[in-house]
């Protein structure tokens, strides 16, 4: 369980994290989502007691990280995978970490096996690929068999097989009852991994809800109708208890799929010129939500939820 209360971090006049409160509950994967520069890494560093909050507090299992007697056994973290001395071997890197928290030396080879690095354990990490470095970082996070796991951008630099491995790992850890807090700037990745979402933009929490809620609220699908008999069609559908919105010359209907809406209208002998299911992707929903809060915005317009061209069926994402 990670609890942040009014967490704020300022660097000079720049506010990196602005009055952030959230709870990361055990037994599920909580995604920490936000564009680059939104304050994800700063928040994670404050969780680990590396950066001092300007105000507010964050606790892990009810106490400050720094107060933990053996923090690696309580919280496993991957912050920057490349933050390693290039001349040290993977095994030695894990050995000094294990020694610092009285973790039995045997656990080192165990986690090396767990992440699939046993064959290169003696090699200096300077020779490691980005993906191998990432795996070593995850080995570090798992070293103390911790009940809380914090991973900052764990799939960066991983190949598709590696990405799937991290996804499975995160879900397995959560299924074991651990608290899993996972940051990413990729919504599509989160959609496949996380049960719960904390979305952050410009240091502020924009959304804190379950994944289904997020989909329902921000990536809603609707059926678009065009008809020469707009009035009667709208009336008919409203009588059926559906939500109907009239936008320009089209009707947007929520609550049924295209086939059901078409049958309803057809039975009454009304005419339709268009009948389309429009569903925006989660990526679009995320872009829309954070569009106003990206720090380094590009000039291209971000696609919005009602751009049919960008629409993809939600089923493909879950």
């Amino acid at each position: 369980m990670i609890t942040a209360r009014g967490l704020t971090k300022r660097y000079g006049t720049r506010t990196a994290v602005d009055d952030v409160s959230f709870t990361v509950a055990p037994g599920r994967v909580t995604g920490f989502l936000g564009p680059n520069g939104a304050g994800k890494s700063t928040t994670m560093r404050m969780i680990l007691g590396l950066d001092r909050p300007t105000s507010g507090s964050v606790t892990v299992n009810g106490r400050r990280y720094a107060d933990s007697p053996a923090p690696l056994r309580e919280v496993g973290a991957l912050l920057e995978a490349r933050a390693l001395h290039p001349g040290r071997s993977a095994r030695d890197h894990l050995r000094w970490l294990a020694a610092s928290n009285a973790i039995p030396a045997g656990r080192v080879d165990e986690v090396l096996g767990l992440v699939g690095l046993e064959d290169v354990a003696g090699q200096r990490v300077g020779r490691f690929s980005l993906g191998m470095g990432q795996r070593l970082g995850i080995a570090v996070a798992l070293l103390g068999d911790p009940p809380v796991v914090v991973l900052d951008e764990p799939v960066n630099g991983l190949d598709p097989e590696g990405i799937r491995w991290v996804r499975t790992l995160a879900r397995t850890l959560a299924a074991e009852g651990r608290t899993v807090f996972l940051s990413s700037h990729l919504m599509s990745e989160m959609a496949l991994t996380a049960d719960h979402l904390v979305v952050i933009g410009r240091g502020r929490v924009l959304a804190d809800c379950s994944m289904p809620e997020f989909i329902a609220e921000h990536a809603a699908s609707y059926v678009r109708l065009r008809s020469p008999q707009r009035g009667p069609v709208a009336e008919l559908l409203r009588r059926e208890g559906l939500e109907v919105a009239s936008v320009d010359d089209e009707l947007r209907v929520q609550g049924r799929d295209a086939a059901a809406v078409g049958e309803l209208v057809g039975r009454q002998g009304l005419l339709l010129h268009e009948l389309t299911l429009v569903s925006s992707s989660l990526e679009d929903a995320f872009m829309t939500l954070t569009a106003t809060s990206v720090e380094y915005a590009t000039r291209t317009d971000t696609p919005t939820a009602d751009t049919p061209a960008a629409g993809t069926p939600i089923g493909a994402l879950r």
Partner: protein
Amino acid sequence: MTDTVALDPNRHVPAAPHPGFGRTLHSEWIKFWSVRSTTWSVVAMFVLGAGLTTLVCATSAEWLASSEADESPASFVTWGLMFAQITAIVLGTLAVTAEYGTGMIRATLAATPRRGAVLAAKAVVLSGTLVVAGTVTAFAGYFGGNFFLEREGIGLALSDDGVLRSMFGSGLYLAGLGLLAAAVGLLVRHTAAALSIVLALVFVVGTMAFLLPGTWGEWTAKLLPGNAGSGVVTPVSFNPELLDPWVGFAAFCAEIAAVLLIGFLVFRRRDA
């Protein structure tokens, strides 16, 4: 990857004792010796310190034994330590700045949030290594160099005035230099910058300062770390203006303590 135990999600670490300073020390020890630069620096210290002492004694013994000699043979038995200083400074700097250069300091402080313990463990590992390596180097240089001095009849016994003191003094002085470099590294967090500052302070500023005029200039020169501390290294110093060996070394220690304290206060407050 699934063979982990089911956990009480709200558990604190079950009966995990505070790992204590011994663990931090062990951790820093592994860290220190698991990079090649440490081995290379210690080897370089020995080769420079003992090797150059032997070499200079071998080539100067005849002159030292002659009537033209205006230096004491006792100034030569630790001659190579002048260069061994560099390796101690490099080792001390890297012990700290390598962590900042790579970002590994975050892993260190995540593993051991008590920053004072981290700093103390680093200091103990570094200074312990340098005391031993420096003393061994000094003895090796003495035995190597004295062999040639004895052939000319000007050899020194270990029991001669200041000889044993210079052997152990070499180890202590190199340990002090390493700590000074580590403290500066902690303040500037950059390898090249820290190395430049300490090397310049010891080798350039330390020598130039004797050109300063007046009493204050003389005292400034005497008290600069490289000058104050190095008196204990030689039985008889080349430089007659230095403070008494142990007086100078005490001043040297006070200076290191001051820089380390500033380093610690900054380190404790600073975001990692």
